[in-house]
Structures are given as C-alpha cells and as structure tokens.
C-alpha cells in the first residue's frame, strides 16, 4: 500500500518533470564495444571534484576568512571536530589527487587522440577546467594563513608583477596596499564562489559536449553491439572511483594535513616553497633571473597553454594512434618529462623548515616561567586575564616581552601589578612558549636535565644568545655550539670568560649558577652539534 503510494507520487512527478526520461537519457548512453578501463579517468576526476566540493562546503561552516581568525579556525576544525582532521585531510590531499587525476585524464585523451574532430571544443573546455583546478589549488593554500600560505602567496603576487600590466594584476590579486585581510577575503571569495561556479559550468559543458559527440572509444572499431553506460561501463567507473576514494581516505586518515606556524609577516628567515604541483614553475624561475624572468612566468607557460588550447587544430589529421602522431606524442613527452624533472629539482632544493611542533629550550623554559605565582595572580580561570595554558596570543612579541618585564604596563593604575618583573631572557621564553600554545603544539616531554638546562638558558643566556632561531642576537648563535666546543672548554668559559680569553665580553656566571645548573647547561650545550 505504502509502496504503491510512493509509486503514484513518482508517477505524478514524472508526468510533471519527465525525470524518468532524463534518467534514462543519462544512464543508457550507448557505449561502443572496446571501451576499456582507460575511459574511467574522467569519472574518477568527477568523483574527486564532488568530494572536494562537499568537503569544502562543510569546511566553510567553520573556516573564518580573516587574518586574526583563519589559523585558529583551521586548528578548531582539525582538533575539536569529530573527524575534522579527516575532513581537512580529504580536502587537502584531495587537491593533489585532483591535479594528478586531471593530468592522467589529459594524458589519456592525448594518447588516444580523443580531442580530434568533432571534439575540439570538448577538449578546450577540458583545458579551461584544468586552469580552474589550478586556480583552486593556488587560491586554496592562502586560506589557512600559516607561514607557507603567507609567503608562497607573497611570491605568487610578485611573480604576477613580472609581466606586462604586472603592477595592475598584482594590485588586483593583493586587493590592498599589503598582503592582508583584503587579500585573504578576495582569494576566499574566488575559492568558494567564483571558481566553484566556473567549475560547475565547465564540468556541465564538458559533460554535455561529451554526450553530444559520444565517447571517442577504442582506436579501431571493435566488433560487438554497443552496451548501455549503466551498469556496464558504470561498473568500471565505480570500481576505479572506489579504489581512488579508498586511497584518498587512507591518506586523509593516516597523514595529518600540514599546518605551519601562524603567518608572521615580520619573519625574515622563512624560505617559501609552493605546493608540489607548482614546484616546476617555481624551479623554472631560477633559470631566468632578472629581466629574463617573464620568460619563465609568462612566455613558457603561455606557450604551453597556447599549444594545449590549439592542439586539436594543430593536429587535425585523422590518425588517433600515438605511434602515428610522433610530433604530438614526442612534444607531450618532452613537456611532461620537463615538468617531472623541474618538480624533482625543486623538491630537492626545498629547505627543511623547522617543525613548529618541536620545542626548543626557550619555550620549554617559558612553560616553567609561566607557572610563576606572579602570573597566576591574574591568569587564572575566572581571573582578570585568561589562564596562560589556553591563551590565544594576539599581541606582538615586543608588547608581550615588555608586559612580562613590567606587568604594570598592561593597565597602569587599574590594579596592583605583581612585585618585580622578569628579565629579558625570561620574557622571550614566555613569549616563545605562548607561540607554541597559539599553534597548539603539544607540550614537550623532556628529561629533567634538559628542562633544567632550558631554564638556565632562558633565564641567563637567552637575552644575548639564540638557539633554534629564538633568543637574543648580541652573542654567538648556540644552536650548534657543541660542534665548536666541548664540555671541558664550555665550563670554564661560562664560569669566568675573561680567564679563558682576556678580551671576552661575556659576563661571568660562576657566581650566578649553582653546580647542578652549571653541569646541566654545559652538558646540554656540548650536545648541541
């Protein structure tokens, strides 16, 4: 009874919309015999695009496109949402999967000559789709507003500057006088409104044209009657799609989608590198320095794009077999090989970035200094300020260091400050610790000796010396001091420097440090090789 009512409803809907005819038209496309597994690439790409679109919509429920909150919102997605880490993983790795799937699809179309008459416009719509996909990739990685996002986008905008009308284009990309909230908002708008609209439009056009001209099929006609798309070819599409989806969800579950430290426009040490799919272009730039730069940024990519768009008109002969089209096959092989080699060279040349989750001596010391009763007078649950363990650091380091050294400056006259501030090294340590808290790096687990040495370093050394890029720059960098001096040299030097070298500027710490502290810091420094 209930079933017949459903049937009646569907019949009524069909009489008004004709949905059954539409469904039949979509699913029963006659597929010629001999269409094999090579023809699943487009469907796999379509599935990946659908996953990207759906995960993007859910990410947009939580993502906030502002420099103040973007990073925190990504952290929230990854750390607080159930399956949020997998959700972002699907979207992040999905982007790479799509680039690979799009290239494989294109190679298949080129290898089997599927772009030939009458499918020229289908091919061009595919090339435009590839550009939209690359546009997604480019605009997507600014959004987390981490170091990689910020600096890679800075490079992208500067590359845009190299061509004709460069300043004008760079201005449009930047949206304001500097890379900031206006840039993030327009790249976000492009990523979630403009490009998806273009993507859907081009995908529909591509599918419509594919249906209009039919599938190009095997190189030579294979005897046998055509079979409907569903379920015969749909089975191949579905199996291939399931395999790729399983691979994607495995990636998303096993690997953590990277999130660098929060963007720091004042950081002069960060060496930006783009995602792997733009590494070849990045590497190409190195071979065309100075005035030749437009060759790498405009001429070569422009030529490749031009050849791609015009391919069906340049190669208009009837032969589809790649043996019989040596120019096209050879040309594509050279372009493909060049991209692979350039990507490899770019990858080899990528500097190892300091892992933001790794704790150096300064944040370890800072975590200890932050337990000071003077901090806890205000920084407690229900207190005048947030507890330090979950403080979202939004102030600049200079403010923070000044605040730790003189807590009264936060609000003179408003409340009584704790007696006595800390020294600059301790202030730097707490600032460093709060940066770790901000990026959500899990607290370091270290030995008592390392903790003691870190506290000594933070309190007595960090005002002048640096380790792992943090600390003062008055004295030498101690990151690898163990490779220059051993413990037997370091102990007398720290105790009484002018006894080792009469010209030494460093103050003596023999009276300041007790024996345990001295042993800890000497052993720690001697082991930093």
């Amino acid at each position: 009874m209930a079933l017949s009512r459903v049937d009646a409803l569907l019949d009524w809907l069909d009489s008004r919309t004709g949905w059954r005819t539409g469904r039949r038209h979509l699913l029963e496309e006659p597929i010629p015999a001999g269409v094999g597994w090579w023809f699943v690439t487009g469907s796999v790409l379509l599935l990946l695009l659908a996953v990207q679109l759906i995960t993007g919509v859910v990410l947009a429920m939580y993502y906030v496109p502002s420099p103040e909150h973007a990073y925190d919102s990504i952290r929230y997605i990854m750390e607080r949402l159930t399956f949020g880490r997998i959700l972002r993983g699907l979207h992040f790795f999905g982007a790479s999967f799509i680039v690979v799937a799009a290239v494989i699809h294109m190679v298949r179309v080129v290898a089997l000559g599927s772009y030939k008459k009458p499918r020229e416009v289908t091919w061009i719509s595919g090339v435009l789709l590839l550009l939209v996909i690359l546009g997604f990739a480019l605009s997507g990685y600014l959004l987390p507003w981490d170091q990689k996002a910020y600096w890679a986008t800075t490079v992208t905008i500067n590359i845009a500057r190299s061509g004709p009308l460069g300043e004008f284009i760079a201005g449009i990309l930047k949206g304001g006088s500097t890379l900031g909230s206006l840039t993030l908002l327009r790249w976000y708008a492009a990523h979630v409104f403009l490009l998806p609209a273009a993507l859907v439009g081009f995908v529909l056009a591509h599918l419509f044209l594919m249906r209009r001209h039919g599938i190009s099929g095997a190189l030579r006609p294979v005897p046998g009657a055509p079979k409907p798309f569903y379920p015969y070819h749909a089975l191949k599409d579905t199996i291939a799609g399931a395999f790729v989806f399983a691979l994607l969800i495995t990636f998303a579950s096993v690997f953590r989608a990277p999130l660098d430290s929060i963007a720091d426009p004042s950081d002069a040490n960060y060496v930006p590198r783009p995602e792997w799919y733009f590494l070849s272009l990045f590497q190409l730039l190195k071979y065309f320095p100075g005035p030749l730069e437009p060759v790498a940024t405009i001429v070569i990519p422009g030529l490749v794009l031009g050849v791609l768009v015009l391919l069906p008109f340049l190669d208009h002969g009837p032969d589809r077999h790649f043996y019989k089209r040596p120019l096209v096959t050879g040309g594509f092989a050279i372009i493909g090989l060049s991209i692979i080699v350039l990507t490899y060279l770019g990858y080899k040349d990528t500097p190892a970035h300091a892992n933001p989750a790794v704790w150096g001596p300064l944040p370890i010391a800072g975590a200890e200094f932050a337990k000071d009763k003077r901090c806890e007078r205000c920084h407690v649950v229900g207190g005048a300020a947030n507890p330090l363990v979950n403080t979202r650091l939004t102030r600049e380091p200079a403010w923070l260091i000044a605040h730790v050294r003189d807590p009264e400056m936060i609000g003179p006259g408003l409340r009584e400050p704790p007696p006595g501030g800390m020294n600059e090294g301790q202030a730097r340590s707490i600032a460093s610790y709060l940066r770790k808290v901000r990026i959500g790096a899990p607290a370091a687990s270290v030995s008592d000796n390392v903790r003691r040495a870190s506290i000594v370093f933070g309190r007595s050394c960090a005002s002048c010396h640096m380790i792992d890029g943090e600390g003062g720059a008055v004295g030498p960098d101690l990151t690898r001091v163990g490779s220059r001096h051993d413990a037997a040299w370091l102990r007398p030097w720290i105790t009484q420097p002018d006894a080792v070298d009469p010209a030494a500027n460093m103050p003596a710490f023999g009276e300041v440090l007790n024996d345990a502290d001295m042993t800890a810091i000497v052993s720690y420094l001697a082991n930093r090789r």
Partner: protein
Amino acid sequence: MTTEPDRRQFFARVVKTIQTAIAGTLGVVLGGSILSPSFLRRDEHWLPAASLSGLPENAPTSITLRLVREDGYSQIVDHRTVFLVKTGEHVIALDPTCTHLGCRVRWEAEAHELHCPCHGGVYDHLGMVKSGPPPAPLPRLATKIENDQILVQV
C-alpha cells in the same frame, strides 16, 4: 547459465553497493564534522563568586562572573550574572534566565520578589514561581563553600 538480464542486474547491484559505501564513508566524516559541535558538552568551571560572610540573608545578590570560554574557533570573555541567596549556612545560586522565554529577571527588594520584565513572571527569593507564565522555577547552579569563599559551577 547466466543470462544477460541476470548479469545486468548483478552489475547494477555491485555499482549501487560500492556507491553506497563511498557515500556512507563520506557521510560519516561529514556528519561527524557537522554535528559534533552541536552536541559537545561545555566545560564546567568552579569560579569564586563572593565571600559567605559578606552576603545578606534571604536576599538575592547579583554577582557577575568572568569566564574565558571557547566559542568555536575563538575565545570569548563571558560575563555571567547569577543571584546568590544565603539562607543560614547554605547558599544557592540562581540562573536569572526566566524559564518562560529567556528574559533576565530582576530583584525587586521592596516586593521581595524576582520579576521578569517581559511577560510579568514572578518568582520568590528562592526562584520558585509565584505567578505569571513561567512553567518552572529558576534553574540553580551548583555551589560549594571553601574557607568562606562561595564557588559557583558555570
């Protein structure tokens, strides 16, 4: 012997099964991400509110508590007002949200009643409904006393 309609039916079933599995897997990830914040329990904290000896007897005293709270991706400073009512050695903490439609009630000292300004709900000094539309007494928050300090759980 397998006939073509059988093959076709079998293939269709395999296609549907695999597609359902893909959609189901994706649905679990998306569903978890969409639904989880709606059903997350809020962290509860004990906040110092007032000293017991400083409170008047049987008269709700309005106290504003400051709490840094997670609000999605951001942290906000939440100021929560509670009424503390001391009766002998005991203290109750009343949430001033009217149980009718959520307006904030006010203490009218002369009438010795809590009044809701929206629809005329009236509660006694312990938050019990005296008249008007409220369907239930004012909610109470857990309290404890440590060394004359009243702590309220929010």
